[in-house]
């Protein structure tokens, strides 16, 4: 490996990428806009939950829960339509809370009761969120009554408390995930299109006609995009922090080590992609095709635990899975070492494997 050639490559790629207005905006402006838009979209999603309560005015416990739910700011109490089912079907309601006949207050007084919660399940993520919110509210109310000696301990086991994100603010959870997805998209697309562009222009032939090994060309093409990916981090992180108030509890070195391992992977995947693609169009298409399963199987949007076993095994090959855990861990929890090192290690291993495969596929001739 020739250091001078690597430096020359770095210079060339940085100059070309940063000089190109399209590339520049893809690298620095698009992620900012996308993260902001995604963040706000997800932000709005969990607010304004329209809740109708079906309980007699004398049912104090039911109204306690309702008012407390309203107090969190996530719920908006609406006038109950005649039938909760119709209200949900017409989209008038997001959730309906129904007290048992005779009232929940009395039922709890007798030693145990159950309120029915009806949810609009057409958006599972939202439904899950609503269920969790209300459950937290219910627990709070019961706890308060126990504390005040209003009622004896009800026959309920307390579910796990939600750590790190006590208000279950999904933006804290989602914004780091979206950040990881954007980083994947930008670095993979830029790398693969930088190689396929040279194939299109014919300059790739000139590279191959030079007396440098394919390994040098490969690393020479990869390294600049790893650097650009790292340069992208503070910018998107800035949006997460300043626009969405996502905390940065871990250290910067942890962030950079994790990002380095991740971007190493994504750039290697970009190169791998360009060994199969002949032109920029194919590379773009390949990027988008790859992006979708990467997102779906990353645990960013859909929980991995809900997946069938065979699909769950596939997620072990998804770099986004590890980085999503890492970035959430570092930003929200301050980077627990038990989560940090195994995930960084997995990413480093994946990067090494993809780079090796890319190198094996990277032919020194045009055959």
């Amino acid at each position, binding site marked *: 490996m*020739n250091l*001078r*050639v690597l*430096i*020359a*490559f770095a*210079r*060339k790629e940085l*100059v*070309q990428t940063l*000089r*190109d207005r399209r590339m520049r905006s893809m690298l620095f402006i698009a992620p900012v806009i996308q993260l902001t838009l995604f963040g706000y979209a997800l932000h709005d999603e969990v607010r304004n939950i329209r809740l109708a309560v079906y309980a007699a005015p004398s049912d104090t416990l039911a109204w306690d829960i309702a008012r407390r739910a309203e107090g969190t700011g996530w719920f908006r109490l609406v006038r109950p339509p005649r039938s909760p089912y119709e209200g949900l079907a017409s989209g008038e309601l997001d959730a309906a809370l129904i007290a048992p006949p005779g009232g929940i207050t009395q039922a709890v007084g007798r030693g145990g009761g159950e309120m029915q919660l009806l949810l609009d399940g057409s958006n599972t993520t939202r439904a899950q969120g609503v269920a969790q919110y209300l459950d937290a509210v219910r627990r709070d109310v019961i706890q308060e009554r126990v504390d005040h000696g209003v009622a004896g301990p009800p026959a309920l086991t307390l579910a796990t408390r939600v750590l790190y994100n006590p208000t279950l603010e999904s933006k804290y959870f989602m914004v780091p995930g979206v950040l990881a997805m954007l980083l994947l998209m930008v670095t993979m697309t830029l790398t693969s299109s930088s190689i396929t562009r040279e194939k299109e*222009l*014919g*300059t790739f*032939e*000139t*590279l*191959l*006609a*030079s*007396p*440098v*090994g*394919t390994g040098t060309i490969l690393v020479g093409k990869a390294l600049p995009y790893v650097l650009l990916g790292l340069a992208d981090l503070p910018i998107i992180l800035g949006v997460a922090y300043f626009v969405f108030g996502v905390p940065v509890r871990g250290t910067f070195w942890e962030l950079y080590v994790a990002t380095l391992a991740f971007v190493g992977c994504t750039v290697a995947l970009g190169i791998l992609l360009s060994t199969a693609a002949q032109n920029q169009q194919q590379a773009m298409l390949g990027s988008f095709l790859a992006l979708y399963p990467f997102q779906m199987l990353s645990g960013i949007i859909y929980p991995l635990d809900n997946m069938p076993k065979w699909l769950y095994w596939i997620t072990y090959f998804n770099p986004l899975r590890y980085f999503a855990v890492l970035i959430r861990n570092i930003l929200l929890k301050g980077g627990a070492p038990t989560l940090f090192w195994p995930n960084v290690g997995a990413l480093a291993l994946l990067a090494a494997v993809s780079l090796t495969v890319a190198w094996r596929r990277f032919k*020194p*001739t*045009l*055959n």
Partner: protein
Amino acid sequence: MSPAAGPVSGPPAVDVRGLTVRFGDFTAVDQVTFQVARGEIFGFLGANGAGKTTTIRVLCGLLRPTAGEIRVGGESFHDDNHALKSKSGYMSQKFTLYNDMTVAENMAFKAALRGVGDAELKERKERLFRLVGFTHSENAMVGSLPGGLKQQVSLAAALLHEPEIIFLDEPTAGVAPEARARFWAIIRDLAAAGQTVFVTTHYMDEAEQCGRIALMRDGKLVALDSPEGLKRSTFPNGLLEVEGAEGAEGAEPGWEARLRALPGCVSLKPHGRRWHLEPATKGDAPGLKAALPAGFTARDLTPSLEDVFLKVVEPPPVKAGA
């Protein structure tokens, strides 16, 4: 004129023996054998798809041959042969500089790829820019330069590592005639200085300036000689140029077919407003002249390379009744 370019004796700069390149079922280069001497200007001609670029790519170490042996500057082909790649310079058909970088940036990148040190780069750049006649600013973006200037920089970049053999694949395609003439003056200078120049072109006036010309057709080498030798061997009985007076053609419909039917006529091909007529033997010329219809005249013509190209390389025109 520049000093006479001349091949030097000794081991050939390029030695190709039985080269065959197949892509699946398609044979791009078929059993091609030739040698190029050091200091020679070697022209490579053929229709598009005849196998010229494929051959050059093998010689530059870019394409693995299916069969046969090649040597460039004494180096044989194997994947990633850096020695072979160091001996050759390559200016490909497609433009090989980066449009979005300056001239200086392009040269610096090329220097790094080719292992040319900073001090050498500075010295050679000056010399090469003088040689190719590039006087524009080095800080100009390559994409903003006109075609002729780009070509100059491209050549300078290909020469930066002082290759023994320089492969130029249609270097003057799309370049203005004046710039083409200048470019060929540079090629002659290079050969005179001992560099071997291997060039493909579609321009016959350029082919005339080559020491020897190889003609490719459908992947096969169909002729190899000096321009004069090719003309002699292709047209051993010379050529006649036929011209009709105003209105003469209209008065004699079907005269071409009748003339072609004569046993002394090998071919009669339209050439602009005239025709080129090839006699079967030297003795057939007077008879053919006599057979011309009224208003037509014929005179002896020295065959040009274009005549050679049309006869040897281009697919024969479908003859009526043939």
